[in-house]
């Protein structure tokens, strides 16, 4: 009989505790995003992988050296690096980037390309509104027309430049 009464009151106490917790939830701010209306203010996560872009600076220059590591590492061949050969002023033949094609339709957003890129030339943005009417519109050229690679110092300075670029990446 004593146990019966004790169980009764402890049960009621436990139930009231549960109701107290759900009541706290009731008044808490709601997490639902009203998407098309709040696209300006919608909460975005920094690490969200929306779309692959080139990390351009303000002189319309990118960091890609057309090594093709990203394209070779890509598990479903979403990337295509088309190179061309140019002759520099001192008469050397040099391989530079012509077109960097990115097929968004076959990308799985695994991020192997950005991890394998030694120059940190490609990065993710938060843009997720990719819908188009034609599949061919999903193939994007990442290097804008008229852009060129950043001029590099001779090979001695190159190891220093790469860590500096890496630091910039982390700060963003």
């Amino acid at each position, binding site marked *: 009989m004593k146990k019966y009464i004790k169980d009764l009151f402890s049960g009621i106490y436990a139930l009231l505790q549960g109701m107290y917790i759900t009541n706290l939830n*009731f008044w*808490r701010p709601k997490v*639902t995003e009203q998407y098309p209306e709040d696209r300006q203010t919608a909460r975005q996560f920094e690490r969200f992988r929306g779309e692959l872009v080139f990390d351009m600076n303000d002189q319309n220059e990118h960091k890609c050296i057309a090594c093709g590591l990203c394209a070779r590492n890509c598990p479903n061949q979403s990337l295509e690096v088309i190179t061309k050969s140019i002759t520099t002023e001192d008469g050397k033949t040099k391989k530079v980037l012509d077109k960097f094609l990115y097929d968004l339709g076959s990308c799985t957003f695994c991020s192997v390309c950005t991890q394998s890129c030694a120059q940190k030339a490609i990065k993710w943005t938060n843009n997720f509104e990719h819908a188009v009417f034609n599949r061919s519109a999903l193939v994007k050229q990442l290097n804008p027309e008229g852009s060129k690679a950043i001029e590099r110092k001779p090979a001695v300075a190159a190891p220093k430049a790469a860590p500096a670029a890496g630091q910039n990446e982390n700060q963003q």
Partner: protein
Amino acid sequence: MLEVGGILSWIHEALSSSCPEWLTLLIEYVLIGVGFLALYALIALILILLERKVCAYYQCRLGPMRAGFWGLLQPFADMIKILMKEIIPLLKNDKFLFFTALFLVIIGSLCTFGALQFSKDLVGIDFNVGVFYVLAISSLGVLGILLAGWSSNNKYTMIGAMRAGAQLVSYELSSGLSLLTIVILGGTMQLSGLIEAQSETWFLFQTPFTWIAMVIYLIAGHAETNRGPFDLPEAESELTAGYHIEYSGITFGLFYVGEYVNMFTIAGIGTMVFLGGWQPFHINAEWAAGFNGVMDMIPTWLWFFAKAFGLVMLSLWVRWSFPRLRIDQLLHLEWKILMPISLLNMLLMALWVTVLVPLFA
């Protein structure tokens, strides 16, 4: 004042001045019937929206927001959708019982709904055994649910119906006993008489035993609506949907509506019996005359609906807080906890009324 009595008597006078008596009565009966059905459907729609919104808020969501402002038109959209859906005929079932079950559930629910007293003048059914009528007619739903499960010829509906039978028959005991406790206190079974007895103080504040009776009534009533932690008959993870799997389109819709209005009916009966029905909140003291006057300004139907929806909110709170009980826990709760307590409570209430009150009177 914002009472509806004036409108009703105006309609009656306008009709009886231009029609013979039998025609007046006929028109009035039809009007009352249509009015009750409209209120029935409207309350179901309001409750469906309320349920979805409150459920969403307990889960930190917003709920329906698209149809109309703040999702207010969502239940109307749902209703139009469900009216247009096909009623799928079954091959091997008892067609007669299949549809009779539906009407039993709806008739039971509607007749109980008719016993509610919405305001001082807006009363559907009121006779001297009102509480008995409510208890009797509300158990018609059990029959409907059992028949629905049986006639669907489906093992899940059968299990659901059997669970519903066990649950509803058990919980009717303690809800009936707690209503009887109030009948002892009020000294009448007439619902209007019970409400009249609460004109100075609600039953809730008259004795401590009313609190126990009310808690037990709310738990048992909650179980009778097959909701919340007591939704074993339609446990969707075990029985897909319980006794109404085979009903489609509006036949399912009627079950759904019936369930939601039952929730309101339980809250309404609880309001009438424990919280004074349409009676305003009064403090029974000399100095509170001004306060009582202000409370009297609020129309009585507003009092009723505010209290009833308050109890509905409590029921929703419970529903979205607790996990579902197992069938043995369910029956344990009724037969070993609620029923002994309500029997004891009734005994104590009888002693209070017969011994203690005359002693100090």
